[in-house]
């Protein structure tokens, strides 16, 4: 029974990118559950009832009502942050009193990242060019890569950047200019 369901799913014709599952059905599969009334108020606006839901249930937001700091304590192995899905790096800016932390996985590319940094620290980044780095402002976003080298943000393709970036630093003034002239 289950095999045929899986086979059907695999050969199903539908519009959509490969590798994306259908939205998980959120109803209980316990067979002692009474039939639900017309419950359209399930999470994310999807209808909730389906007695033949797939065996593994999607987890409902906020249920059971245990705060996340309690839930996180008991992963079998201590998961590193990247295993949990996020790539967190610290961001500092010269002259700013506080450090910040961001999740690089959330952003789709450099423009979004730079926008976020601008908003976070309330400054403007200049225009980027491969040859001359960032022009038009005193600040330049830089990052420390896996080898410990300080690089200019934007010099490598985005995918390579998010896997090699260890921390970000928004440099100010002449120090920044020194980096941009070093070339790729």
């Amino acid at each position: 029974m289950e095999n045929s369901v899986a086979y059907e799913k695999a050969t199903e014709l539908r519009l959509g990118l490969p590798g994306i599952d259908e939205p998980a059905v959120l109803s209980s599969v316990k067979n002692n559950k009474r039939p639900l009334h017309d419950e359209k108020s399930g999470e994310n606006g999807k209808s909730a009832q389906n007695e033949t839901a797939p065996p593994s249930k999607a987890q409902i937001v906020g249920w059971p009502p245990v705060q996340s700091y309690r839930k996180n304590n008991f992963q079998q192995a201590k998961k590193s942050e990247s295993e949990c899905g996020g790539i967190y790096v610290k961001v500092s800016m010269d002259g700013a009193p506080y450090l910040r932390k961001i999740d690089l996985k959330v952003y789709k590319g450099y423009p979004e990242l730079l926008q976020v940094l601008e908003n976070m620290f309330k400054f403007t980044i200049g225009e980027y060019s491969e040859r001359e780095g960032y022009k038009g402002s005193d600040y330049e976003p830089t990052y420390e890569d896996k080898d410990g080298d300080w690089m200019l943000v934007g010099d490598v393709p985005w995918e390579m950047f998010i896997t090699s970036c260890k921390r970000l630093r928004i440099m100010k003034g002449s120090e920044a200019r020194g980096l941009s002239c070093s070339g790729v």
Partner: protein
Amino acid sequence: MAEQMSDDDERQQSPPSDLDFTSNKARTCIVTGSVSGHTEFQSLYPDQVLENVLENVLHFLTSRRDRNSASLVCKSWYRVEALTRSELFIGNCYAVSPARATARFTRVRALHLKGRPRFADFNLMPPDWGAHFNPWVLAFAKACPWLEKVYLKRMSVTDDDLATLAESFLGFKELVLVCCDGFGTSGLAIFISKCRQLKVLDLIESEVSDDETDWISCFPEGESHLESLIFDCVECPINFEALERLVARSPSLKKLRLNRYVSIGQLYRLMVQAPQLTHLGTGSFSPSEVAGQGDQEPDYVTTFAACKSLVCLSGFREIIPDYLPAIYPICANLTSLNFSYANITAEQLKPIISNCHKLQVFWVLDSICDEGLKAVAATCKELRELRVFPVDAREDSDGPVSEVGFQAISEGCRKLQSILYFCQRMTNAAVIAMSRNCPDLVVFRLCIMGRHRPDHVTGEPMDDGFGAIVMNCKKLTRLAVSGLLTDKAFDYIGRYGKLVRTLSVAFAGDSDMALKYVLEGCPQLQKLEIRDSPFGDAALCSGLHHYYNMRFLWMSSCRLTHQGCQQIARAMPRLVVEVIRSADEEEVYDRVQTLYMYRSLEGPRNDAPKFVTIL
């Protein structure tokens, strides 16, 4: 620890305690028949004497409820009460504005504010909803610079706010932040360095961002006044040497709760410096990785034994159970024990719990299984509060505890007043048994983690169990229900739950009738939080007579429409009706994803984010 651990700190009944200002009800003064005013000062000597006497007498009035009542007697009493109120409690920070609060109460020493609704703890609300401390700290800095204590729950506090606190209030003594966020270790550093009189710094279940600042080192040199330092929720390493020096120069320190970055060896060193501690959070309770092979283990047992005043123990964040015997000497004195981060078995628990005869508050993980609970029931005859948390908080996980342990507790711990119990299996019989064995129950929160799960023996809904609780537990003020529940359960609640103030409902009920029963039947209801239940606009309307008596109503993923909520908003001008969209929600027809409404003197707030619509 009891006062901080217990959620239900409300002992006040009507008149409403968070909405103290009912100036339109004040009658003219009985004695003189004239309106009290500034000019009266010279003329009527008997009045002046009366006011002085009144002021002296009202100083002794501490209960919020009594003060609220006193303020309603007449304008004179209203004024004097306002002058003598030193502790100001505001249960919903949006119910009243900082300006109004500071205008009325000018001599406040302690401010207690609550912000976000509780369901925000479970990610049911996008972040940045509100509850900012900032306008409050600014208003009080100007109007009430003698403020000494601030207690915040579920509020957003920034580093700047912490700086303002320390800079604007010269005698500031106590800061308690529960379930707060928005600040980091740099904010703490500034606060600590400027607060010369600090006695209490308690960070409880709060999110503190790691700005890599060594805040522990910021305590001023010389003898410190510190009585309580709680930072077990701070998720970043600390400068241990600085902490050790701090503890050594804090002779008044009674409460110390360490975070998980403090190893057991370091704990030992601190305890040697502070045998006078009454409340201890042990940190990781495991050795640091750098311990050498041949290092001598310190004598933990003797050190614990030396702490003769220790009554409240918590921590055990990364426990190595081999070290548990260290706490044997103090078990007999403990009134409060928090093992809710310690993944231990029944066998590991038994030698400890069998000595805890005086235990009143016990928090634990379900890893101890029904067997562990039986051991608790066998010894802890004084138990007042029990919380059993799940190691594996998922709907379909194995449940190591069930109705068996639950019933054992009810039979052994007859003085139980408060229970929070997460499980996968429960029976009506066990719940009924508890309702009979534990008549003193004030707080009953049962969370059967699988949604809509019935009595696993009979297959029946859990209606009768919860019905018995409201029927037999005559002091019940807080109730959280779960499992398969029909409208009948709510009929019981409406009929018998006459003292219920807080009710939590999830995935329950069949129809609007359920909500009607509750709104029409429970006159003391103040806080109602509902999720994923089939209640619609008609049910919402049935509470119109009562909403001004409530602190708030939360309904998410129910069957409310915009029109329905709009109707309420129009009918009740003093109610703020917020419709909250989740970040990635598409609008489903006309459905309201989340309704959060509360009474307020101020009308719609001006700091609502984009995803909130105020009707």
